């Protein structure tokens, strides 16, 4: 679980530090203050040591589709990597520092990502590519367009991984990557893949059949009639279907956006047990009257699977529903943060239980 997180020179953030995270963290703020960028930074950081995360993280935003037709593949990759830097300035390294609580220990994990353009620096580099030690200037790799360096630092342990961008637009890390500290998943607002959800469902069921029972129990919080979930292959596509006692299995998507979206949240929570779930625009698809129960389901599942959740929202109803749900729970393991541009710089404003309670009672704008 993250306790704090610090970002420098990433996307719209010149410098941002957020502290006192809880199990469930809700991020609000006006457009273009970096709510999604914060989730992306957490996703990259939780990847631990993988420089390719700086490219992968763009997938949910649909940027790749947008520029695919206009640029050469290598330009696209360069664009994606450069867009990660504050004001596209690759001269100033991106830094991400997370304080992660693991059991009784707190671990500090720092990532620094920068572009290497200095020729003499490139000449000095020794790279391990396809298990071979070679110089960056070796004719074998003269086709590389650009090199980025990801260095990591945690409790005295240090390391560097280079990311080579080929002229064909491929990204190759210089060495095999250590496994990340924990699993993380980003749930975007864009259309979900039924196949992916079916795959996650299958994986979870293979791991532990009881986990599916647990997910079902949490889903019953908003759909009490749901007795069973199964995968049916319809037109060659595996689809999650539910039994609500009408004699036929019904695709979850036909039960409504709310139930299918909550199902995917819960499946993701089950899949990344011990890890991180990042949800963009969490309120999408839910009627305000079920929001409190949605939060109850997410919170119960997150506690059960020891998952930390970071979500964004624009909805006041969603914030109020979360406050109500967590106030009722045994433990108020929830925190609201608003990102706000103050004198040109984005800062995070933290709302604890009492402050949020007062703000909502006084009708003060918290979003």
């Amino acid at each position, binding site marked *: 679980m993250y306790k704090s997180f610090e970002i420098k020179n990433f996307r719209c953030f010149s410098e941002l530090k957020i502290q006192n995270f809880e199990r469930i963290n809700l991020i609000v703020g*006006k457009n273009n203050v970096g709510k999604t960028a914060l989730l992306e930074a957490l996703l990259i950081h939780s990847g631990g040591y993988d420089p390719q995360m700086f490219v992968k993280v763009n997938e949910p935003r649909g940027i790749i589709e947008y520029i695919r037709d206009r640029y050469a593949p290598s330009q696209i990759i360069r664009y994606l990597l450069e867009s990660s830097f504050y004001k596209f300035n690759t001269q100033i390294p991106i830094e991400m520092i997370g304080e992660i609580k693991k059991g009784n220990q707190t671990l500090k994990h720092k990532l620094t990502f920068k572009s290497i353009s200095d020729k003499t620096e490139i000449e000095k580099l020794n790279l391990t590519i396809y298990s071979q030690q070679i110089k960056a200037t070796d004719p074998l790799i003269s086709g590389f367009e650009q090199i980025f360096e990801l260095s990591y630092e945690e409790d005295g342990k240090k390391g560097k991984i280079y990311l080579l961008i080929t002229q064909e637009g491929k990204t190759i890390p210089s060495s095999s990557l250590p496994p990340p500290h924990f699993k993380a998943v980003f749930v975007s607002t864009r259309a979900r893949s039924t196949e992916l959800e079916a795959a996650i469902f299958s994986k979870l069921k293979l791991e532990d059949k009881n986990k599916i029972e647990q997910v079902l129990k949490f889903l019953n919080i908003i759909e009490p009639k749901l007795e069973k979930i199964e995968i049916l292959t319809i037109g060659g596509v595996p689809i999650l279907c539910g039994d609500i006692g009408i004699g036929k299995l019904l695709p979850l998507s036909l039960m409504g956006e709310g139930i299918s979206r909550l199902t995917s949240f819960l499946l993701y929570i089950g899949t990344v047990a011990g890890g991180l779930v990042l949800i963009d625009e969490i309120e999408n698809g839910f009627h*305000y009257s079920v929001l409190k129960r949605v939060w109850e389901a997410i919170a119960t599942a997150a506690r059960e699977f020891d998952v930390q959740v970071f979500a964004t929202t624009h909805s*006041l*109803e969603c914030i*109020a529903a979360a406050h109500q749900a967590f106030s009722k729970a045994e433990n108020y393991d929830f925190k609201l943060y*608003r990102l*706000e541009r*103050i*004198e040109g710089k984005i800062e995070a*404003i*933290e*709302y604890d239980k*009492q*402050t*949020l*309670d*007062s*703000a909502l*009672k*006084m*009708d*003060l*704008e*918290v*979003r």
Partner: protein
Amino acid sequence: MIQEQEKKEKTIEIKQEYILIVEGKNDELFFKALCEKIGINNIQIISLSGKDNLESKLKAIKNTSGFPTVKSIGIIMDADDNPTSTFQKIQNALRQIGLPAPQNPFQFNNKGKIKVGIAIIPDENTTGELEDLCIKVIENDPAFCCVEKYIECLNQKGLELKKPSKSKIYAYLSSKETPEIRLGEAAQKGYLDLDHKALDKIKNFIKSLLK
């Protein structure tokens, strides 16, 4: 339910550099009228919806979007049964949330980026509330002797008044064109002489917010 939802959509953001924090909706209307009377229209008045949880309410205001542009804050509170302890409670709450606190009532701190002042009503040495201050405004009004007689009569009949100043004010206001009005609205409707010298001290406090 729909009305409830619509009401919730109207949220308060900080839009002015000068803010006046008052106890409740009634005070908000009263001080709005008073500000208008002295030609001030760039102070935003925020109601705390009650005196409880003062610290978290002040923090909620401090957290509200737009707060970093605030230059000065005035807090006006009823003395209730102890003006000194009311002042100290506000002082402590301000310090707890990292805002500067003035040394004395009706003064502003003069250090730091933001100016903060606390006013106690009727004043820093007297117990009571906004109604007590307003009694001074109306006590020379011809209708007020009727109010006194009415209250005296109630006393003679052994009816004990829990909040005599409130009883007096509302007995007085019942003689007006709209008799069921609250104090804040009465000030807005011009039922109270807002030029009265009894209000000078609080007016000066509000004016010094802008200095």
